[in-house]
C-alpha cells in the first residue's frame, strides 16, 4: 500500500482556543479536512500491516493525538477511569493508556530527589504531568519490537493499535516504548495501548478541567523519553528488520 494514499498531510491549521474543552471528532475532522477538499475523511481508512510486512517507513501517519496540559490537571484521574471503564468494562489505572497516577505525588522523576523540591507532583510544585501515547511515526518502537506484527495502523485516525488476535502476550512492545506507554492486561494476557477510541478519546471527554485535548498529530517522538535505553535483549524481529533495507541503504 502506498503511503501517499493513506496519509493525509496536515495543512497548517488554527487550533481552537487553548482554553476550550474537548473537540468533538466531527469538529476535529472538519479542521483536518480544511485543506484537503474533496477527500472523504470520515470514511474509515484502514491501513494494515500485512502478514508479509511492508516497509515500516510506509505506515500511515496518525491523524490525531492526545496531549495534556499539566497546569490545568488537578489529578482526579477521571481520564484513566474513562479509558478503562468505557473501553474495558473495569476500572484499572495500570491498564489506562493515559498515565497520571504514576506522576501524581512526585512527578515523572519520582521520589529520588527527596520531597518538597520544586519538581512536579503533590509533594512538589503541584504540577501533574499527564503522559499520553505519541502515536509515533516511523520508527514506531512498540510496532518494531512486536514479533507478530500485532501492532497495526488502524482507521479512522490511524492510531497504532494492538490487534489482540495476533498478540501473544510476549510484552516486547511494553519494554520497547521509550515513554513507557504500552500497557498489559493481566486478565486477558494481551498488550494494549492508546487507540484514540476511534477518534473520540474517552479521556478527553472525561476531563473535568479540559486539561487533555485531541489535536492534529504532530511528531513528539523527539520528546525526552522516560526510558533512555531500550533493553539490550530487544532485537527487532527478523521479519521486521528484513524490511529496513528498503530505505536504509
Amino acid at each position, binding site marked *: 500500500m502506498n503511503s501517499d494514499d493513506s496519509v493525509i498531510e496536515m495543512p497548517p491549521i488554527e487550533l481552537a482556543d487553548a*482554553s476550550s*474543552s*474537548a473537540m468533538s471528532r466531527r469538529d476535529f475532522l472538519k479542521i483536518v479536512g480544511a485543506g484537503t477538499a474533496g477527500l472523504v475523511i470520515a470514511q474509515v481508512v484502514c491501513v494494515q500491516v500485512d502478514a508479509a510486512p511492508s516497509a515500516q517507513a510506509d505506515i500511515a501517519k496518525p491523524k490525531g493525538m492526545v496531549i495534556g496540559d499539566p*497546569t*490545568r*490537571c*488537578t*489529578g*482526579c*484521574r*477521571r481520564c484513566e*477511569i*474513562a479509558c*478503562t*471503564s*468505557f*473501553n*474495558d*468494562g*473495569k*476500572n*484499572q*489505572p*495500570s*491498564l489506562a493508556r493515559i498515565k497520571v*497516577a*504514576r506522576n*501524581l*505525588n*512526585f512527578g515523572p522523576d*519520582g*521520589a*529520588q530527589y*527527596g*520531597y*518538597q523540591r*520544586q519538581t512536579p507532583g*503533590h*509533594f*512538589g*510544585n*503541584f504540577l501533574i504531568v499527564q503522559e499520553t501515547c505519541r502515536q509515533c511515526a516511523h520508527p514506531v518502537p512498540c510496532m518494531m519490537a512486536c514479533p507478530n506484527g500485532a501492532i497495526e495502523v488502524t482507521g479512522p485516525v490511524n492510531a497504532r493499535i494492538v490487534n489482540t488476535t495476533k498478540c501473544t502476550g510476549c510484552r516486547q512492545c511494553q519494554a520497547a516504548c521509550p515513554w513507557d506507554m504500552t500497557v498489559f492486561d*493481566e*486478565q486477558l494476557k494481551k498488550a494494549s495501548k492508546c487507540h484514540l477510541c476511534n477518534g473520540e478519546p474517552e479521556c478527553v*471527554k472525561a*476531563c*473535568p*478541567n*479540559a486539561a487533555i485535548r485531541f489535536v492534529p498529530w504532530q511528531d513528539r517522538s523527539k520528546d525526552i523519553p522516560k526510558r533512555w535505553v531500550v533493553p539490550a535483549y530487544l532485537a527487532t524481529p527478523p521479519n521486521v528488520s528484513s524490511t529496513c533495507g528498503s530505505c536504509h541503504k
Partner: protein
Amino acid sequence: MAPLGGYRGKILRIDLSTGKVSSEDTAKYKDFLGGTGLGYKILWDEVKPGTKAFDPENRIIFGVGPLTGSGAPLSGRVSITSLWPNHLNELPATGHMGGHWGAELKFAGWDSIIVQGKADKPVWIYINDDKVEIRDARHLWGNGIFRATEEICNEVGSDTQVAAIGQAGENLVRIACVMCNRSHSAGGVGGVLGSKNLKAIGIRGTGAVAIAADKKAWKDLTYEFLSLIGANNQGVVPRTPQPWAEYYGNTRWTARKGLYWGSAKPAVETGECSADDLNRIGYRTQKGVLDHGEGVGEKYLVRMGGCHSCPVRCHAYTEIPALETKYGVSRFQGNTCTGNSFGSGFFSSPSGSEARIEASQLGSALADDYGLWSDYGQFPRDFVYGYKSGLFKAKLDPKEYDSIPWKLLDNNDPAFLLDVMKRIAFRTGELGKAFADGMPRLEQKWPEIAAYHQTYDSSCWKDAHAKHHSSEAGAQVGALLNMMYNRDVQCHTHTNFMGSGLPFNLMKEISGELFGSPDALDSSTQYTPMNKGKAVFTKMSLIYLELHNSLTACNWTLPLWTSPRKDRKYRGDVALESKVLSAVTGEKISREELEATGLRILNLFRALTARFMNEKDLRNKHDLANEWVYEYPKDKPAFAAGVTKMDRADMELAKDMFYAEMGWDKATGMPTQQTLEKYGLKQVAEGLKQQGLLV
C-alpha cells in the same frame, strides 16, 4: 466470595502483635457494605466493652466499599473507624480521609484492612497487590509525614499511595490524624496507629475493580451522574450572576469570567463554567477565594485538587514565596476548609490579608507534617481562649509560660505556629500535654475550659466537640444530627441539600417531594417549631451519611437531591446511590433496600455507642447539647427572627418525633428489639440484652 463487580472479595487482617497477615471473605460483611458499616461491625464483633483506644485489643478499620475505586464519581473516600481517643469515654467514631489511598487499596485487591495488636517496634505495612509485608519503620519513626511518605516511595516506588502518621500520632496525641496525598487527613485516629507502633501503610495496586453493568450502560449512568453535580457541597447555581444561569445564590460555585488560579504558570482562568459544560466542573469551585478571601485567595492559588474520581475539586493548593523566606517551609502548601483555617484560627488577621493566608498555609505545612488535627477548630479556639482569658498565665508554671513567644501571638505573627504546633505534637511541657490529651480531658483538667464550652463563642456542641453544621443548619435537623455522634458530627447530607443556592420557594417544593412536607425546610432567617417533615429530613440525612461513608461516596457533595439542570427543574436523583451500586455490583438494589441497609448500619452504630457507654439512656446521657444552644442570644426568645436559639421543650419534642421515625424507644432513644430485628441485627439485640441495655 466470587468476586462481584465493585468488591474485590477479600478483606485484609493484620495482627501486629503476632505479625500474622490473613485474608477474610468480604461476603461475611456484605450486609454492612464496607466503610463505616464494616468498621462498626468489626468493633461490635471483636472489641470488648471497656477496651480503650490505645489498647492493643482495639481495632482500627480502614474501610472502603464497593464503590471505592470503581471510578464512580465522588468515590475516593476512606472511613477509618476505631475507638476514639479524643472522647472522654473513648466511644466508637470514624475519621474520614479522601485522596487516592482508598482506591489504591481496591486496585491492590482488598475490600478494607483491619489492624489489631501492637508491634514490638515501629513498623510500616507494605501492600503490593496480594503481597503484604510488615516492614521495619525505625528509620521513619520520629519523622514527619512528608519525609515518611517520600522515604517509603523511594524504597518501593514513586507510584505508592502512602497513609502515614507524623510525630503527633507517634506521641499518642489524641488530636492526631492519618494523612495521605499530602493534604488529605483523617482526624482523630492518628494516635491509634501510634499506639500500635504503626507508622504508615503504603499501597501499590495494579488490579481492576470490575463494573458489572455493560460498558454503554455504565458510561450513560456516569455522565448522567456528572450532569447532576454542582459545585463543592452541591451548590447547584453560581455564586454570582452569570449570563447562562437563571439563578445565583450563596454557593461555592465561584467560577466567573476574570477569576483565576493566579499562581498557575501561566495563570489559568476559571471562566464562566456553565452547568452543561462537564469539561469545566473542576473549575467551578475556586475555593481559594472562599478559604483565604478575595485577592490573596486568587493571587496565590496554583490549582484546585481533590480525591480520586471526583470532578469537584475542593482542595486549594497555593504557592507563597514568603513561607520559604520567613518561616523556612516549602512555598507550596494547601488544604481545604478547616484544614486551611487551622493555622489562621489562632490569629485575628482579617480574611484576605497576607498575614492570614501565611498563617493558614504555614499551619498546613506544620500540621500536615506533624499529623496534628484541629479538632474541627476546637483546638485553636480553646487555645486562644486559654491565653486571652489569662487561664494559661494563672495555671502554668511561670517558667514555662514565659518560654512561650506570646508576643508573636499578640502581633498576629504566623511564626507563633512554629512554637505551638510543635509543642502540642511533641507534648512539650504542661501546656503541650494538656492540649495533646484533647479537649474532653482539657475540660477535666481546667473547668474554666468546660465553662467556656457552654458559651456560644466556643462553638462547642457537647462532650468538648465542636459544633459542625448544627442548629444554624436546619435548626432542629442540625441540632439532632449534632447529638448523634461521638466526635464533631461529620454530616453534610443536610447542608448539601440546603446549600443548593436555589430560590427558597423552589427548595420548599423539593422538600415536600423528599420529606413529605415543605415545612421540613425553614428559611435561614426564621426557624419554626419541630414538625414531622424535619424528623424525616433528619432520618434521611443520617441514612445517607452512613451509606456514603460505607459505599464509599463523598458526603461533602452527595447527596444530589438538587441539580444544576434546568431541564429537570433543578431536581437531582434520590435513587442515584442505589442505581450506581446496582450497576457496579450487578446486584439490583432498590432505593428502599439501600436505605434499609443504611438504617442497619445506623442502628448498629447506635447500639455500639450504648454498649461502650454501658448506658441505655442515650436520650438523657448522650443526645445532648451545650447551654448556649438554648441560651444564645440572651436578649431574644427562641424562634425570634434571625436567631438560631433552640427551645428546650421543642427540642424534647424533636427527639420524640425523630426517635419515632427511627423506631427508637421514646424514653431512652435506644433502638428497640423490634427495630434491631427488622434490620437484621438480632445478634446485636442479644448482645445488648446480655449487657442489660435492651429496651
